């Protein structure tokens, strides 16, 4: 295999001008309900990238990029998927008792920028496309990797934890408090992992939804401790958006490049 011949790019403003374009908006997966009872239930899910939580006003998330995992680890079929201009939606049926994970699959993408004939060029795509298109051969090309994951959890019956199994790659969440067992006024705890190890010193931002007419964004920022743990107390009931990101470097096919990792989750705090 041809090795990537790229110029190593440290955390530069050029990179974040590109990577930041998408992350300035908030990507979210919002189930209609988070906690269910009964033998089987349907859940409908909205997915979008917007400024306001959780009001679509910018871009849809492709429903084809979404995976649903059942409590026993099997894949759940997404039904009635629809991609709108500023929001997508889909349904799935739950017939197992326990916790389901809804997540964006993969989420690894590459950003490149270079100058060609005096013109500044930007490119975004997969590693395969990058090599196939010869992007890595462009003069003085700067390539970076971004790995994003976005998820949410819903529970039918009693909560289970099998779907929290981590892959050991990228920025991942390992719940201490079950995401479907969070109550307003009670402390909740999550552990962040970076490539499988506790992610220390990562800033996590937690924002309550329904912020459209809220003068105060009411963001909470907490930083992970040496164990990768954060603890916070949601002050109100309703859906919340949690996000964390970290930057580092990664060796891709022999080429070191800067890497930007992000993890996002929606959860609901129930009222007492």
């Amino acid at each position, binding site marked *: 295999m041809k090795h990537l011949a790229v110029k190593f790019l440290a955390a530069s403003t050029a990179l974040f001008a590109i990577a930041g374009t998408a992350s300035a908006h908030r990507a979210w997966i919002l189930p209609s309900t988070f906690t269910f*009872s*009964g033998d089987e239930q349907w859940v409908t899910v909205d997915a979008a990238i917007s400024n306001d939580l959780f009001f679509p006003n910018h871009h849809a998330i492709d429903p084809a990029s979404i995976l649903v995992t059942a409590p026993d680890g099997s894949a759940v079929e997404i039904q009635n998927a629809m991609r709108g201009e500023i929001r997508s939606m889909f349904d799935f049926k739950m017939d197992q008792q326990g916790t389901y994970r809804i997540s964006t699959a993969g989420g690894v993408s590459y950003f490149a920028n270079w100058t060609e004939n005096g013109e500044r060029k930007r490119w975004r795509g997969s590693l395969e496309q990058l090599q196939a298109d010869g992007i890595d051969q462009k003069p003085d090309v700067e390539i970076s990797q971004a790995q994003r994951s976005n998820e949410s959890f819903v529970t039918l019956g009693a909560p289970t934890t099998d779907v929290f199994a981590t892959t050991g790659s990228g920025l991942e969440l390992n719940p201490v408090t079950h995401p479907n067992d969070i109550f307003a006024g009670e402390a909740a705890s999550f552990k962040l992992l970076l490539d499988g190890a506790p992610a220390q010193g990562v800033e996590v931002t937690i924002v309550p939804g329904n912020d459209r007419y809220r003068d105060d964004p009411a963001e909470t920022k907490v930083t992970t401790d040496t164990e990768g743990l954060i603890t916070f107390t949601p002050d109100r009931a309703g859906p919340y958006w949690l996000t964390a990101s970290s930057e580092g470097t990664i060796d891709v096919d022999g080429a070191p490049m800067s890497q930007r990792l992000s993890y996002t989750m929606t959860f609901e705090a129930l*009222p007492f």
Partner: protein
Amino acid sequence: MRATITLAGMALLSSPAIAETLDIEIGIPRLDVAEYHRPYVAAWIARPDNSVAANLVVWYQQERRGEDEGETWLKDLRQWWRRTGRQLDLPIDGVSGATRAPGTHTISLDTETSGLKDLEPGDYVLNIETVREVGGREMVQIPFSWPAATDTPLSVSGETELGDITLNITQDE
């Protein structure tokens, strides 16, 4: 009050098998609303740490024609669901029941025959939670000591979805 507590304490020391009866009255108010559905109601006894010592009642829409859609809304009894409901395999004999009409409903539990037989002496909280379709939700609590008999019934009144709730513990002669 002093005499009652002493008596209860002695009874416990000398003969823990002495029977007690726990009577609970649950008032469901008559509401003047356009669309009325009988409320879901749950009653349970919790320890001070919120763990559940006994499930007393859960009234919900019962299965009809093989459908169990009534269980869909059990999670709306959200504290009950969190503390115990979601761990239960419903229906439970002597606990599950159909929804009740407005009025006062009395539940009488005898320590000899109910799940209260294994209730350890100590401080407890009686929890009553209710939720109504296209209506409101309310939860009330009555702290009590077990097995101390109550001189007069302990009571609390709901403000919207519950009426008067009373708890009376008597020792059977």
